[in-house]
């Protein structure tokens, strides 16, 4: 063994200390960005829920007043009810459509890749363009759908006037925009089901729908749950499509929690009430994400020990 001089020892000790720091320096930018842009503002938002504040007015502590206001506001309950209905309808429709299309495509068509490309195309459409698109198609007087309905002697879709028409239209838009996501996840899952399982089931006499019911469905259930959870979390915060299309109207029929928050915050400049609503949204999101967080904790933190 070589005898090291004290200077060299010091140098090596220093570089060893540096080497230990390397991973933390590498993750510092990401963590810093998340802290500054996401975590600190979120804490600030939580704090704002306990103050009354607006433009030109100094923030004053009001305790739980904002929450009292929100929970006494019939529009909040209307928005909450709409959100619950909206999320459930939208998510299950998306899962159903995504799964149906995935199973259909799994039978393999000629030009398969072209069809898949077309199916995921709506993913490239922004909320603004989707609204523009469907406003064009559903134009009350001259649009194609209403013209066709007129020809068939049916009632026109008047989504700017009739509440449930408006609600159905925003559901349609959201489903149209997000089915590519559920399709992609479920298609990957359906394609991953082992062919041997199908063959074994066929030997046992299973046919057609039975194969789907007893082989495909159980095999892709984990993927369905993943898609379900992600879509619940993201559908719950739906804002852009609805704000641009209806701003919550007519008669509050498409008022969602996000719209209620936005209206209080950026139309009435009542930041306290908006922040109280935001806190409600965070709590619901946390509940919806709890399974994800628990899985994450189990696989990353607990099992790592």
């Amino acid at each position: 063994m070589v005898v090291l001089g004290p200077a060299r020892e010091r140098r090596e000790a220093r570089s060893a200390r540096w080497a230990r720091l390397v991973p933390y320096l590498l993750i510092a930018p990401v963590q810093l960005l998340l802290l500054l842009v996401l975590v600190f503002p979120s804490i600030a938002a939580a704090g704002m829920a306990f103050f009354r504040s607006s433009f030109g007015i100094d923030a004053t502590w009001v305790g739980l007043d904002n929450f009292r206001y929100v929970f006494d506001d019939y529009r909040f309950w209307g928005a909450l009810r709409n959100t619950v209905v909206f999320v459930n309808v939208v998510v299950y429709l998306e899962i159903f459509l995504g799964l149906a299309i995935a199973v259909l495509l799994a039978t393999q068509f000629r030009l398969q890749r072209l069809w898949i490309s077309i199916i995921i195309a709506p993913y490239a459409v922004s909320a603004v363009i989707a609204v523009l698109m469907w406003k064009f198609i559903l134009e009350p007087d001259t649009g194609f759908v209403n013209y066709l309905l007129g020809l068939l002697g049916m009632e026109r879709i008047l989504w700017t006037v009739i509440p449930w028409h408006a609600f159905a239209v925003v559901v349609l838009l959201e489903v149209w925009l997000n089915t590519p996501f559920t399709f992609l996840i479920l298609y990957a899952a359906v394609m991953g089901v082992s062919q041997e399982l199908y063959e074994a089931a066929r030997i046992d006499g299973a046919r057609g729908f039975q194969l789907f019911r007893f082989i495909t469905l159980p095999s892709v259930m984990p993927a369905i749950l993943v898609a379900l959870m992600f879509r619940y979390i993201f559908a719950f915060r739906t804002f852009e499509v609805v704000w641009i299309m209806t701003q919550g109207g007519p008669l509050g029929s498409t008022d969602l929690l996000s719209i209620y928050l936005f209206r209080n915050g950026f139309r009435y400049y009542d930041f306290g009430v908006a922040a109280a609503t935001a806190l409600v949204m965070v709590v619901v999101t946390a509940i919806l994400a709890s399974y994800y967080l628990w899985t994450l904790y189990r696989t990353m933190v607990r099992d790592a020990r």
Partner: protein
Amino acid sequence: MLGRRAHENALRWLLLAVVIFWSAAPITLVVVSSFKPSHRIFEFPPTLIFTPIVSHYVTLFRQWPEFATTLVNSAIVTLGAGALTLLVSIPAAYAYSRYSSRLLTWSAFGMLAVRMFPPIVITLPLYPIIRALNLQDTHLVLILLYSTFFVSLATWVMKAFIDEVPRELDESAKLDGCNVLQLLAWIILPLSRHGIVASVVFVVVYAWKEFLFAFLFTTSAARTAPAIISEMLGSVTGVAWGPLLAAATVQLVPLLVFVLLVQQFLVKGLTIGSTKG
């Protein structure tokens, strides 16, 4: 027996036709109609055969001269968000792939947990902060915001790709005297270049489409295309649909091409992002 096969096959193709119609018809209708003369836009049934004209595009840029600027802004913000996301995610992905400690584990958990946070919540505190810092109507604000919501996913996707690069390569590069950054640049990145694409596609798509932050935090200098199109949509009266359809086409087609080009990476990123945290 053969008859039944043929029936089944016909049914399959019929269902596929319905699915394709549902996905493609609205997009096709908008793009095609933007090239039709005004009086033929609402012609029923819509026809695919006509002499295309570009007058709606001319009108669009004449009536809304700022539309060109918003397109440039969208491009700047999208590229900026993509670049920043990669810049901060790649080093972190390497660290999470190659090192382990209590602190790293918890920081990764935190990183993936905050991914679920609703963006609308932070608009409230950011509104006054951005004004106080005099950052309203700048590209920087949008770049920072867009990156923040996608660095977790990007880091995790990138980590999955770096995990595939054999560690022996790290060791031999270190023996050759490479430091970590050189090792990343010369050894790791060339071998995980698909991961770079897979981890950046989602933020690119998001940045090009995003409306809420752009609507709130920009007014003119950094206004993006979705924000101004929503403005046009609000001001459209009667049947002046031509320029609007042209604007929609200009905003939509580049991203559509991009999404179709990176299709396989989307699938890869989604699988990693949804099943591994």
